[in-house]
């Protein structure tokens, strides 16, 4: 293995491609007709989405009784899926906002795609609380508006905070995404020859002119948005964790929940982004834009956040014992050795042990292994939410009400369907919009910035 030369910055985009060739490469999927593989993939995701529709139809027609939820376990797959999908979204904002603030240039190749995933993941996540309320057509009541009932929403409820947090998150992510897309729409507008496309791109580019007097404010706004999105992304999963942590249920009420949830969200989000990007870079020949170095860095972040999550598990266990509070102690023993021990150990082995493989450089840079590890991480993070939600509820303070929760086929249909919903959007996205930010990638190609020599 060659020694890294620390005196030189690693190229973000390999091989110093000509700027025009980047235009051609990135807009190629938009200018060519989708091939057979695309339709095969789309038909798979659409069939999965079909399951979603059937599962939701059954739920709406017959009621929430179609799910496996029982008396102590009033929150189950619906909330597990909600937290899981919101978590997936967090990687996108982390990449686009936090890494931007840290000036990590390697983010440019993956930022657009990750932001897109954020939006689709949050859309998927938003569905779950909306269907969980039982009568989703009355979801408008979640908003505080003057109404004939003379009622206001309950601002002390973390569930209401969620309404604000997730919708704000969705809107701000969308704005962030769109602001990033404006120059790319303008580039596409100049490239295209068909009339309809030109009209569409002109509309969305708003007549962007690449003026430096605009770029100046544009960069400022990008910085401001990143500055807002960073605390926002922390706040969203923090508030999701408040849904649990403000209660008095052992296993839910613990003060480390906010940072622990955020770390977990970033962890699972990166795993998902990495999984999908491995396909994207291969299919669209973006290997020199989304480089192996980028993937390696993502794996490092997974290692860090995975260890943070492991730290939180350990801390919860230690403090549960240390607290001397019996129900706390019982809850954690019950998690590890009770009826849901299988879920707990899936979670620990997938989330804490597997990512430790990323200590080895060879594994960090091997695409098949990292792919498998990231899949494990996603499985583990889904089970983490399952463990938190279900084990704590199924055995609460009152032993007489304990019950084992078993999901029904409708639960599984909705779970599988949510993946279908998400990946359908992803597939359409790859064909409808540039999945890599053209303007940003050009800016980080070697020698694309002035050298300031001779001044």
């Amino acid at each position: 293995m060659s020694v890294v030369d620390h005196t030189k910055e690693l190229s973000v985009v390999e091989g110093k491609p000509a700027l025009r060739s980047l235009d051609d490469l990135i807009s190629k999927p938009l200018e060519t007709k989708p091939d057979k593989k695309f339709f095969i993939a789309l038909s798979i995701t659409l069939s999965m989405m079909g399951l979603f529709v059937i599962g939701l139809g059954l739920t709406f027609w017959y009621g929430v009784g179609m799910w496996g939820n029982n008396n102590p376990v009033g929150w189950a797959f619906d909330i597990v899926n909600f937290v899981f999908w919101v978590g997936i979204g967090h990687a996108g904002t982390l990449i686009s906002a936090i890494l931007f603030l840290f000036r990590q240039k390697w983010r440019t190749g993956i930022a657009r795609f990750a932001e897109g995933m954020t939006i689709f993941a949050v859309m998927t996540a938003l569905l779950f609380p909306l269907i969980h309320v039982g009568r989703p057509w009355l979801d408008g009541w979640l908003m505080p508006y003057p109404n004939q009932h003379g009622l206001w929403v309950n601002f002390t409820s973390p569930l209401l905070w969620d309404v604000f947090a997730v919708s704000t998150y969705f809107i701000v992510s969308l704005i962030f995404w769109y602001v990033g897309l404006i120059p790319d729409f303008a580039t596409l507008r100049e490239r295209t020859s068909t009339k309809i496309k030109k009209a569409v791109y002109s509309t969305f580019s708003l007549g962007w002119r690449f003026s430096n007097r605009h770029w100046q404010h544009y960069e400022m706004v990008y910085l401001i948005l990143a500055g807002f999105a960073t605390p926002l992304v922390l706040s969203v999963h923090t508030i999701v964790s408040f849904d649990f942590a403000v209660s008095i249920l052992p296993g839910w009420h613990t003060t480390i929940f906010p940072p622990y949830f955020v770390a977990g969200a970033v962890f699972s989000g990166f795993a998902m982004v990495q999984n999908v990007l491995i396909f994207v870079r291969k299919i669209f020949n973006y290997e020199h834009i989304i480089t192996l170095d980028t993937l390696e860095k993502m794996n490092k972040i997974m290692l860090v956040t995975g260890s943070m999550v492991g730290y939180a598990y350990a801390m919860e266990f230690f403090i549960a014992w240390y607290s001397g509070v019996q129900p706390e102690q019982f809850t954690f023993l019950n998690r590890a050795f009770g009826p849901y021990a299988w879920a707990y150990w899936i979670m620990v082995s997938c989330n804490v042990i597997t990512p430790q493989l990323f200590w080895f450089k060879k594994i960090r840079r091997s695409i098949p292994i990292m792919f498998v590890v990231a899949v494990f991480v996603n499985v583990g993070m889904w089970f983490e939410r399952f463990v938190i939600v279900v084990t704590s509820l199924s055995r609460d303070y009152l032993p007489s009400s304990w019950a084992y929760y078993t999901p029904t086929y409708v639960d599984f249909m909705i779970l599988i369907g949510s993946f279908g919903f998400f990946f359908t959007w992803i597939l359409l996205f790859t064909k409808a919009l540039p999945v890599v930010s053209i303007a940003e990638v050009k800016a980080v190609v070697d020698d694309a910035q002035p050298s300031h020599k001779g001044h």
Partner: protein
Amino acid sequence: MSATQNVDYQKKELPKKFQTVGTVLFVIGLIGVIAAYLTDGSRSAFNNIIMLMFLTSIGLGSLFLVSVEFVAGAVWSTPFRRIPEFLSSILLVLPIVVVPLLFKLGDIFHWMHPEVVEADKILTGKAPYLNVDFFIIRVIVFILLWIIFYYFITKNSKKQDTTFDQSLTKRNIKLSAAFIPVFGITISFTAFDWLMSLEPHWFSTIFGVYYFSGSILAAFAAVTLIVVWLNENGYLVKGLTKDHYYSLGAFMFAFTNFWAYIAFSQFLLIWYANLPEETFWFLQRWEGSWIYFSIGLIFVRFVIPYVGLISQPSKMDPKRLIIMSVWLLFAHWYDLYWLAMPNYSKEGVLFSWIELTFPLMAVGIVILLLVQLSKKNNLVPIGDPKLKRGIDFRL
């Protein structure tokens, strides 16, 4: 791979007055501390804990910053990496700061009295962790671990000044990667041991993160203070710009927010759930004159630094940075006082010359350490391969 780098750095001695000021502060502090111990032993011990935790914050936090720079491959902080390296030498002094406390353990920790533990079911349950022997073992092992990492990381870094060997950077990256998990675990348990177990019935899973957030902020403040002062007076390498200042200011701002986030999360969850086994800790800090002190914490630690650092120009203004970093160091002491002191004085805030002598001594120690280290070492890691890139860093 070794190559001499062409950077504009002339080593300059720090002015003599630093040594004098440091010595004076240290001597006054030391005399004051001895006098304090003679007048009121247990109150002094609590102040000693605050000093210990303060010095640990800066020393350990600085070493953490150094290791993060290595692991993340950051370049902007390379030109002044020596400063956190110097600051982490505080870790060498910790054993001396701990010694007086070892004689006063019984006065500080309620759970160190076997008869108390026996009468208290909850404390009996905690005895496997909270007992004198294990406590002392932990303290020794943690400090030893830190010193070992400090020794090797700084040794490699210093060696590079003469050898320009890039493999030393690689070695330090590995050491740092090993240090970070060790750091995470030890700093949490240090916080549990010295601060949380002052009230042995109370518990909070986020407490380690709370102390971590404050520590990193304090370390950033100390580094900023020294770097800005040295650079404004021409002791550092030429070519550091507003962009470097901006980064330091931005990190102080970010960690101010992070601290507020952690502190608010802890408070909100306990306030909301309203469980008596948790709320009593906050209620203690809400009684007598402590209520004003607690409300003051919000302003001292969050509102004032937030307003002071929010605008872009303020993060680049050397004067503002120096004021804010001094303020943040004070705020960290204030925070530690808020964590520790209510366990000693339940009635209200205590303040007299005893509370002043300990900070004096701490500042004296830090100044003396810096002066000593700056005599023998370069203030800039001139052999570091990332140095040139670090100087050229632009936002």
